[in-house]
């Protein structure tokens, strides 16, 4: 590591964190699983870190008013056991198994992953799939940003440099919702491509559908046209195949790279199909 080049502030309360962030240059250290390798890389520029691990009250994990509220120090592994019932709990439990490996899950945090905004990461995809809201605290007070406008580019979010992501609110999913997740064989930490689905069936018919493609563009996106194709269907194999076909057209990454386009489109076609089939197993059940 480059000892001289790192300034380290161990904050004890949120006010100290915001004071440290006021210069617009300081990075927030939560789990550190992505940040530490970056700041310690040989040749990395000097940096200033504010460690939030000693701040009280940051480990909120509670269901409240139809939402799961998650604080900045909730580690990935907290989601390995059911923290909330219903389809949201299923989704979190399925997805967390794919994140890194046990040591990463022991340290890394959900909010850290959301703020880091790796285009292939799992939690941003969950946030987009379920329509989470992000609560930011800063010099001008608190504000809430919906997930679909929070992620703006790779490693870039609507969070201003002076702000801290203090909470994510994940809406619980209605009865009759099934969830699905499928990913392409990964190189090591992140998937090359993945699809995530949450589909609600009421009276045998798809009444709500969310299908999110991971690493298909600068940030996770809902395949809206594909979702619309699924709505009102009976969730048959044919409906799934058609939906996957529409979803595959949405891969927007590396438009200039013609050589890999057909293979990537095919990957999303297959992954969307697998995620939807997985979702169908849980959909339509009540209570």
């Amino acid at each position, binding site marked *: 590591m480059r*000892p*001289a080049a*790192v300034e380290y502030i161990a904050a004890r309360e949120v006010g100290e964190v915001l004071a440290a962030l006021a210069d617009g240059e300081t990075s927030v250290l939560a789990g550190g699983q992505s940040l530490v*390798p970056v700041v310690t890389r040989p040749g990395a520029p000097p940096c200033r870190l504010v*460690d939030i691990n000693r701040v009280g009250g940051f480990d909120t994990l509670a269901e409240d008013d139809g939402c799961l509220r998650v604080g900045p120090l909730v580690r990935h592994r907290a989601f390995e056991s059911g923290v909330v019932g219903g389809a949201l709990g299923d989704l979190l439990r399925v997805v967390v*198994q794919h994140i890194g*490996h046990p040591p990463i899950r022991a340290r890394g945090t959900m909010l850290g992953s959301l703020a880091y905004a790796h285009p292939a990461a799992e939690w941003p995809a969950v946030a987009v799939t379920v329509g989470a809201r992000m609560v930011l605290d800063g010099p001008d007070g608190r504000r809430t940003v919906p997930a679909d406008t929070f992620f703006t580019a790779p490693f870039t979010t609507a969070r201003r440099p002076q702000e801290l992501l203090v909470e994510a609110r994940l809406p619980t999913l209605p009865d009759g919702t099934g969830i699905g997740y499928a990913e392409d064989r990964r190189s*090591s930490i992140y998937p090359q491509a993945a699809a995530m689905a949450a589909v609600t069936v009421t009276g045998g018919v798809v009444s709500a559908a969310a299908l999110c493609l991971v690493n298909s563009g600068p940030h996770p996106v809902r395949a809206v046209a594909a979702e619309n194709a699924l709505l009102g269907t009976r969730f048959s194999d044919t409906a799934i195949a058609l939906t996957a076909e529409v979803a595959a057209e949405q891969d927007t990454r590396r438009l200039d790279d013609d050589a890999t386009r057909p*293979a990537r489109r095919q990957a999303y076609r297959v992954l969307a199909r697998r995620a939807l089939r997985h979702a169908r197993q849980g959909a339509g059940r009540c209570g």
Partner: protein
Amino acid sequence: MTIEINGTPHDRTPLPGQCLRTYLREEGCFGVKKGCDAGDCGACTVHVDGTPVHSCVYPAFRAQGRSVTTIEGLAGPSGLHPVQQSFLDAQGFQCGFCTAGMIMTTAALTDDQRADLPRSLKGNLCRCTGYRAITDAVNGGSPAVCPAEGAAVGSSLGAPAGPQVVTGTARYTFDLDVPGLLHLKVLRSPHAHARILSVDTSAALAVPGVEAVLTHKDAPDRLFSTAQHENEAEDPYDTRVLDEVVRFIGQRVAAVVATSEAAAEEGVRRLRVEYEVLPAVIDPALAMLPGAPLVHGDKGIAEGIVRANANVVGELHAGIGDVEAGFAAADAVYEATFRTPRVQHAALETHGAVGWLDDDDRLVIRSSTQTPFLTRRAVSRLFGLSRDRVRVVAGRVGGGFGGKQEMLVEDLVAMAVLRTGRPVKWEYTRSEQFTAATTRHPFVITVKAGARVDGLITALQLTVLVNTGAYGNHGASVMHHGCHETVAVYRCANIRTDAHTVYTNTVPAGAFRGYGLGQVTFAVEQVLDELARMIGMDPVTFREINVVRPGDDLTAPGAHVPDLGIASYGLDQCLDRIRAASSTTDTAPDGWLVGEGMAIAMIAAGPPGGHFADATVTLLPDGRYELAVGTAEFGNGSTTVHVQIVADELRTTPDRVLVRQSDTDVVGHDTGAFASTGVVVAGEAVLRACRALRARILAAAERGPSEIRCLTADSVAGISLATIAPLSGSGHFDGTPRSVAFNAQWFRVAVDPDTGELRILRSVHSADAGTVMNPLQLRGQIEGGVAQAIGATLAEHVDVDEAGQVTTTTFRQYHLPTVADVPETEVHFARTTDAIGPLGAKSMSESPYNPVSPALGNALRDALGFRLTDLPYTADRIWQAIQDHRP
């Protein structure tokens, strides 16, 4: 605030930004290993308040007020932690560099996580074992064997270093505290080819802590090769410690030596260099064309370069018989061109060395090397020192795979020590390992072969292009070796080979497990598979008709090697196993395409041109024996076998044998731990030393050499061994004559036509290693070789862009096989006894790697109906090929 480490409070405040791993190592916890610096490899795993973390991505500050447990603190007062014990029992390690991290991660797994190791151990990489032994360890191994007197050979004795490996007390290259240590960092070239016009060192020297800056003006005006061989003429002398001309992006330009790593890095950043950029050539085919930029145009035959004016380091144009007549006599002829990419050795311990002057002012270099003696010779020659003024010693080496048959750091460390008079350390980062160590040689191989309908191969023609990169280390030898055993294993009357090794302005390639055989085997075995298909014969029968048999001569185009022969033969047994494998059945997912394929490989036991070993065995006053042997231990297990030989030859038990090794002060000479020689060359020297000592012990008791029954672990003919100690015996072996070993691999695979995903349904390997000295260890070596080769076949590639820049620089980009990627391989041993090797043993080590890629290629061909010729076989390439072959 203090940090509690293994129950003891530590008061020293971490430096700002220091990671926990560095802090722990500074506090003496050397069991915490540095493998990647990026949270990818898991070698640094420790527990913080009982939770496993990768300590390289955990700021040390954060551990204040917390309790840290490292591998050193895992064992309880009553002995080893159960996970340590099971890793010891199952021998769940080879080099052991990843083991502390594996054990720490495993010790914190829940039962559910233990049942799903592909996911739970994703964060812990092992390059040696292929994970089978690790999986066995996690599931609880059976207790280690304790062979009785005289019964060690053939038993699955554990590695002597096992207890140290599982407790984190084995000492690797950097696991020592050197007072007053200076740190070395280098500035690396941003240009693929340039002349250095000037280096302004003033700003660098002004950095507090910087002690010296070294440039080409300080370097000896002598050429050498980083490659290490007994025969120094084998490699071209084309390299300088620091050169005025840089020939690849990443080559050393200048070195900064400072009191801390940070100061050395800051010094490097402040160097100002003026370059004259020269034209560069990246593509090996273009490098041979007239008018191509010359990489070593200033050198020639005198330096060992065959045609420097065409960038050709070495070439082979030779034949036996008449290939044209052979093709004319064929009923079927097939020709195809194959390409293999650069692959990294990815030993978890990077290259590096620590040097100092000892009390007698001798230069001491402690290095992560496979060749301590040859490195001493090279350092002595470069700096004009007599050999007795240089000592090279290796600690336990954290993996090599050929990459450390190379002097990549010791020369510059020596120069810095001699310049400053102080201890100096240089440890490669993981990124430097990718951009500035060596890789496997990329090959382009065209094979044309013909056969008659009765199965006889009538002609074989090889055209081979080897890219050695900017320097010729191992380049010509890898080409010659690659073109030899691959065709010599067949009794073909007409063979023609045309091969070139060429320079390009890219990162140099070097020795890599298999030494060229893997690349050429990949092509030859696939072309023969296709020929068998064309004449409608099964591939095993086709091999049986054509392979060499006992008594056959092993000639192939090129220099005749008269000391090589078939001193035992088990290839027929290997093929029988492969035929049996094919009669099994497996189920594949619906809609997947299933195929099977096999390939064979032969390897000479040791290199041509001499490979020397010395050993001394001494009877100590307490009745134990001390073995001194020069070869290095880097997880290959030669030490275990040497102990077994000593125990049996001197009728004692393995726990009464001490070993001193890997140190130029210990014995006269040893060529080194490469070319699969640990058993067949060093082991033979050990055997001879034992027999010399045994004769002396018996003589001391007035008994003849055949009366060995009167020798026990405590006495000889009733006389206590203590009364005749000390006594010594020495042995030497020059590595000639040589026998050959055989390997055969078979796979059944399934391919998902929807995604191109390839799944191995069954893997069977059969090996003829002569006498199996240690079944558990040999099985592990084969599993590890197969796993590495599966990685190189399905995933691994180091990429170089059009400018010559290596773009694969971290484990996150370069996919090493994880638990999830490696199937279990059934391993079978042929029953043979070699007439040359010690106690009938032959070499193995490298050779299990070689038949794997072509066997997978043949299985894929069987599944798809067409052949893929370029490695690696990634899912997207397979899927794209399926699309391209749709009618």
